[in-house]
């Protein structure tokens, strides 16, 4: 087990070094994008909008914007790191070594979570330049951030397993992740939607994460907190199971 622990640490450190080495490509862009969001949506447009659920528009959108960066970066880290490892074949360094599949997966996921946290912190600093962020429930904030980062790291992993070209690693983020995030209520409360679209929105898992996170910061949410955590945890369990199975079978990495 000692050996496995060292192997796990090696994977995590290698993953973290990778994205820190290219911080200009990994940490800076989300900060730039966030600044633009706050200036355009928060400042220029937001000043024309009535308070939402008792919070200024700028305050209301801040949690969603922070969480969106965490989602995107956790996902992007794992999908590009693991696809890169497949593409250059150095994934074989892991496959031949005596490490359990679940530990390989966990190490890679921790790398994704680390990038989510680093970027999340950077974006939070940006947010604090524009709004006074409150902290309604630190425990909820920490839990949501970690679980969300884990969930999307796993998503990125499954994407990378099936990806056969660099195009395949941008299809899911562009056509699924981004729309779901935008429709998950970053910029609006689903109560502003017609009843039908409110119902449809409830099928969007990202809605639960954004609302749980907003609850942690502002104390307001469109959905029940317990329900949100149940859905997030169940999704993580499912994705983890699928990922370990894929790795065990060698799908996409072993012929």
């Amino acid at each position: 087990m000692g050996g496995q622990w060292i192997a796990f640490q090696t994977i995590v450190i290698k993953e973290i070094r990778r994205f820190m080495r290219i911080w200009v490509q990994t940490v800076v862009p989300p900060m730039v994008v966030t600044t633009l969001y706050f200036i355009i949506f928060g400042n220029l447009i937001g000043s024309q909008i009535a308070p939402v659920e008792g919070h200024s528009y700028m305050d209301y959108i801040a949690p969603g914007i922070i969480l969106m960066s965490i989602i995107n970066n956790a996902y992007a880290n794992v999908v590009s790191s693991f696809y890169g490892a497949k593409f250059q074949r150095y994934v074989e360094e892991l496959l031949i070594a005596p490490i359990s599949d679940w530990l390989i997966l966990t190490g890679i996921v921790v790398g994704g979570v680390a990038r989510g946290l680093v970027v999340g912190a950077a974006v939070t600093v940006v947010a604090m330049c524009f709004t006074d962020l409150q902290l309604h429930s630190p425990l909820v904030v920490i839990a949501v951030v970690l679980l969300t980062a884990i969930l999307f790291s796993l998503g990125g992993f499954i994407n990378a397993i099936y990806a056969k070209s660099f195009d395949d690693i941008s299809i899911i983020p562009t056509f699924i992740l981004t729309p779901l995030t935008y429709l998950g209520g970053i910029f609006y409360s689903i109560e502003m939607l017609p009843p039908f679209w409110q119902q449809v929105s409830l099928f969007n898992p990202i809605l639960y994460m954004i609302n749980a996170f907003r609850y942690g910061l502002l104390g307001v949410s469109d959905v029940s907190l317990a329900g949100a955590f149940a859905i997030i945890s169940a999704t993580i369990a499912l994705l983890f199971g699928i990922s370990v199975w894929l790795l065990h079978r060698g799908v996409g990495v072993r012929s």
Partner: protein
Amino acid sequence: MTNALEISQLKKTYSHGVDALKGIDLTVEEGDFFALLGPNGAGKSTTIGIITSLVNKSGGTVRVFGADLDQQPMAAKRAIGLVPQEFNFNMFEPVEEVCINQAGYYGVTPPVARQRAERYLRQLGLWEKRRTIARALSGGMKRRLMIARALVHEPCLLILDEPTAGVDIELRRSMWQFLREVNSRGTTIILTTHYLEEAESLCRNIAIIDQGRIVEHSSMKELLAKLHRETLVLDLQSALTTPPTLTGYPCRLVDPHTLEVEVERQQGINALFSSLSQLGIEVTSLRNKSNRLEELFLSMVKEVQE
């Protein structure tokens, strides 16, 4: 004594139906220097891939130092160090990090990993390059990096898949010398190659694989003896009932009009014909019996030259 490797009835059918291995058996003793020789596409890399868990097998069993690959995969993996045929390190990682990380994957603690990385990088003449990113190395250096990487966890079985393909003669010889030393310190070595010369210079035992089948599994000595012998088929004018005695040439009567004679290559056939004429045996025609092994080698030599 346990064997370093025992393969039995190993089969591999790739997903689109290529039968790469058709049930091979292979045994490599502990401490051996073993060559798996065969032309391109014979199934060498597939075999290595299965032994090292990079390829899923379709049937059969593999044991590495007694550990069954299915039942005790961790023990089997720990015993093996692999130098694959294609470069497979992170091109953007510094040389030293490539080795240290690999050691970490095998559970070697960081201080020990650093020591060993230094030891093997020095031995392979790469220590000066330790901070260089792997991509910037020359082809020969990349090969040596993969050898260093394969040794950092000090495996009992070192497997090299065509380690000297595309490496110039001088470097090839120094790699051979290095591998001999590794072997003399007790590490079992298996290498695949399609240079007979390489196998001849390094290996004690050998298996030859062709089209997914083992066609020869013997000591290097026996193989060379076989290759230096050829069989001539003589058609006779008149029928014989018993094979004649031809000093120095073992022979066999296939039918009353056909005689097969074994000839060592350096022996020549003048003496054979004088014995035949002394015995009054008239030969109407003469041909070489086709030799599967020899054909295989001719095709390999041709491949290497191309």
